[in-house]
């Protein structure tokens, strides 16, 4: 069969909503795009554990500590599901991780912001996981089978993340004056970076929407962002707090909220590595990898010895 024929079959599957599976023929660019996107998604889950991990030992109660531990452990699992999905495309785990540590691969910029107070843990669950869920729900219908299956699993676990975050803020919003201020302050600092998570405006793209045509992505950045704003603008009323945007207003005609412009200079700055915690995050990942070297070696040696013993017996 010629490449043209194979491509035709591939496009037909996409057209008919038939998932692409690891051993199916696929265009190189489809493979590469998926490798890049899924591995970046995996890195985001893993690096995303760091800002929250910061508060595990300082959670205000044992209950909050147990919840936060469970949430962060979930994120490790999400990273693993996604690394495994990446591997089905023919790249090794080690290569993927090397790309993260060398700075070649990216992860979501949101995790380059610091967690300054306990309220940040609430804001992250509500806003950051909330934004991630918008994207991930869409991705349960992505065209690459292993990615879609990982997303179904992840989405089942995510809703607890957003709910526990909102609940943290809800308690603070009903607390003392200081607690209320802390709640508002965290919302002020996380709101804009959360909006940035959806990426640049659709009109910024001068290139063809190949990812849309291949149904890797099924909604545009602006579409997802708008859905997110509409959801949060309603939910915040329950907290009695304010979103830090004077342009935020219900638009009766469009049946959507209007909102102000994102500071794109800040956005690109953080993407390029100049965010408040970029260096700290990568250093932490590299350190964990290097200091785990002896464990990986010991486990491999032990397994080898045991196999030999079993073969001899």
């Amino acid at each position, binding site marked *: 069969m010629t490449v043209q024929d194979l491509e035709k079959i591939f496009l037909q599957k996409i057209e008919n909503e038939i998932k692409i599976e690891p051993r199916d023929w696929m265009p190189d*660019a489809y493979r590469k795009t998926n490798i*890049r996107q899924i*591995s*970046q998604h995996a890195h985001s889950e893993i690096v995303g554990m760091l800002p929250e991990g910061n508060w595990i030992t300082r959670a205000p109660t044992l209950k909050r500590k147990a919840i936060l531990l469970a949430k962060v452990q979930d994120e490790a699992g999400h990273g693993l599901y996604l690394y495994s999905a990446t591997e089905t495309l023919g*790249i*090794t785990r080690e290569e993927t991780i090397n790309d993260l540590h060398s700075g070649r691969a990216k992860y979501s910029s949101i995790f380059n912001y610091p967690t300054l107070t306990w309220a940040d843990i609430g804001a992250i669950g509500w806003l950051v996981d909330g934004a991630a869920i918008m994207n991930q729900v869409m991705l349960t219908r992505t065209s690459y089978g292993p990615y879609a299956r990982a997303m179904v699993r992840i989405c089942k676990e995510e809703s607890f993340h957003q709910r526990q975050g909102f609940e943290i803020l809800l308690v603070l919003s009903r607390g003392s004056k200081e607690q209320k201020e802390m709640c508002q302050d965290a919302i002020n600092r996380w709101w804009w970076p959360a909006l940035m998570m959806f990426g640049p405006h659709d009109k910024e*793209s001068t*290139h063809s929407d190949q990812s849309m045509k291949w149904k890797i*992505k099924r909604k545009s950045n602006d579409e997802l962002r708008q859905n997110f704003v509409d959801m949060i603008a309603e939910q915040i009323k329950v907290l009695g707090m304010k979103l830090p945007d004077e342009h935020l207003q219900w638009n009766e005609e469009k049946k959507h909220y209007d909102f102000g412009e994102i500071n794109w200079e800040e956005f690109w700055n953080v993407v390029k590595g100049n965010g408040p915690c970029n260096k700290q995050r990568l250093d932490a990942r590299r350190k964990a990898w290097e200091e785990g070297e002896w464990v990986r070696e010991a486990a491999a040696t032990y*397994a080898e010895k045991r196999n030999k013993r079993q073969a001899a017996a």
Partner: protein
Amino acid sequence: MNIQIKKYFYGDIPDDKSGGNIISKETKNDWPLWEIFIRSKQGLDHKHVGSLHAADAQMAIENARDVYTRRMEGVSIWVVQSKYIHATAPEEAGELFEPAEDKIYRHPTFYKLPDEVNQM
């Protein structure tokens, strides 16, 4: 085919220098890959849920427990090293599975029976 993908989607940050070169190499400390099967409750089949790396079967089972059964998703785990799985090739799918398509008489709905006995 040479398509440049530069659109910056959420969860996909293009980088001109990167883009995943697919050169697979096995390194010394790469733990083998294992496929994980979970029985969600007594009476049901084990079902494939995903894969993970582990040095040996024991570790694969322990990791599978942590990764795939944190919310009571399982009562039993099977692990098998991925390299021992043999599979049909996608190219063979037609030859293997299409012959079943025109044998509709293998399904109960093929037989039109009077109402009185249609519960059969």
